């Protein structure tokens, strides 16, 4: 390998300092990778539970809306649906997990009470109430799962990038710098031996 390095003592000192810095960075990146991976594993198990809960909630909601449509009629369900006073709203902000910017999803009017729905209470149907409640819970679960899923994706991307950096430092950057350091040390030693030999020759003359 051709090394474009000046074999000087100051370069050796600089290189030693850079190796130390790089090794510090390497250790920090390794810690970050392990930390991110730890966060990822915790979130992953939560995500698996959330997904399972989402599936169960969806099945319950579907069952409730099917029952409401079958008993009260699809037109009654549509009539109630068009009158909902507030549609669910979702607001996405950001927060930081170990330097990774992840989305934070907050919803409003996701799960509404009887009064918030704005429909008449006296003539309401328990089947429609239960369908609306189930869908409120479903939307909450969707929002929670969406936040977790996008957080997991961001964490995964960051873990991959950190892993690449750690590997690059461990298998390329640091070994190359150590090689350069060895080269300079050898060259300096050789130059020192040459100088000693030259001095001896000069003394003999």
């Amino acid at each position, binding site marked *: 390998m051709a090394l474009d390095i000046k074999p000087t003592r100051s370069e050796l000192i600089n290189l030693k300092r850079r190796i130390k810095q790089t090794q510090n960075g390497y250790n920090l990146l390794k810690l970050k990778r392990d930390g991110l991976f730890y966060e990822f594993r915790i979130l992953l198990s939560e995500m698996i539970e959330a997904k399972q809960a989402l599936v169960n909630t969806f099945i319950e909601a579907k069952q409730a809306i099917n*029952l409401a449509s*079958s008993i009260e009629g699809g037109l009654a369900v549509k009539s109630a649906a068009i009158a909902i006073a507030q549609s669910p709203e979702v607001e996405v902000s950001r927060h930081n997990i170990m330097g990774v910017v992840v989305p934070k999803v907050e919803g409003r009017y996701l799960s509404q009470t009887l009064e918030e729905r704005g429909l008449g*209470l006296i003539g309401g149907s328990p089947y429609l109430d239960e369908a609306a409640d189930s869908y409120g819970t479903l939307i909450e679960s969707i929002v929670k799962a969406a936040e977790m899923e996008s957080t997991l994706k961001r964490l995964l991307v960051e873990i991959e990038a950190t892993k690449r950096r750690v590997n690059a430092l461990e298998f390329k950057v640091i070994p190359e710098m150590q090689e350069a350091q060895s080269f300079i040390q050898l060259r300096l030693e050789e130059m020192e031996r040459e100088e000693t030999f030259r001095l001896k020759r000069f003394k003999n003359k």
Partner: protein
Amino acid sequence: MTMMAKGGSNWAYAAARSKTRKANLIDATRMRQLLQQEPDAIAASIAEFGYRSEMDVYATRLSGADLIEAALNHNMDRDLAQVLGYCQGNLKEVVSIYVDRFGYQKAKTVLRAVRSGVDYETLAHQVLPEENEENNKWLEIVKQSDDLGDVVSALSGTRYGRALSDLDSSASLMQMEDALDAHYYKASLETLPSTNSLLSRYLRAEIDHRNVINLFRAMRQGLSVDQRSALMIKGGKLSAATLRQAEQAADGAALLEILRRANGFDDTGMDEALAASNEQGTLDPIVSIVTGQRMSLLRKMSLLNPVSAFPVIHYIESKVTEVRNLRLLARGKAAGLEIDVLEAHLLI
């Protein structure tokens, strides 16, 4: 009987025609056979049972369960108009009171559509199909109204307008719907000749059933005592004192205990229904038992009073039940509900 005291009515003729019509409705055996059929076969059978012309009307733009439901509703509206057509005099007034409830539902749909700004086409295609001539007057109101105030103005002079006239201009949709629901029973009981008339007895029982269901709903939804109180419809057989106590009940068991102490409350099967309701997390078992009690009361009153408005009303309710059952089968089968679930909800 009070209802028979006035002249000009064709009680016997209308009762006979209603009984004949009722005999032509789908019986329990046939309904159970339908339960075993696939959705397409159910649709074909429904067409054969006298709904073909209405299905043809909607077949160009609807399909599946939507087509069946639109056809069933259209047929029912047409049937109600025919029944009112052969009733005369005081009988017609009494039957109209019962039939009015479907108009109140449509008034609420119009209010909802106007408040939410749903466009005319969506409403006319999906909620109040314009092919059904009974919906035209309601669609016209939607077309001419920009806000709830316009709807109230358009309804002025009608019974629906009278229900809304006491509300101030800033009343919410919820207040308007509640006013309509409360007004239906109040106006009906006031119109009927005396509190002892057959229909008023039935309506009072129906009010109790509605109040009982609403009390359980309110409890499930965690409404406060004041909110529960606002849900109660006045005029039922349950006394005001019983309702006040019921509104304050801490749980379903306490509510049932209060209702059980009241005169005339039929608690048969309610303990089991309450236990099933708590276990399944749904009010379905309680609603089913209360609906069954109401149907049974109507059947009993019809049999005990063969020459009265009740055979007509019983026929109307049977027709409504048939439509409800067919819709349940069509929608339930299309949605993949299990046969056990469908059978449990069939009113036969």
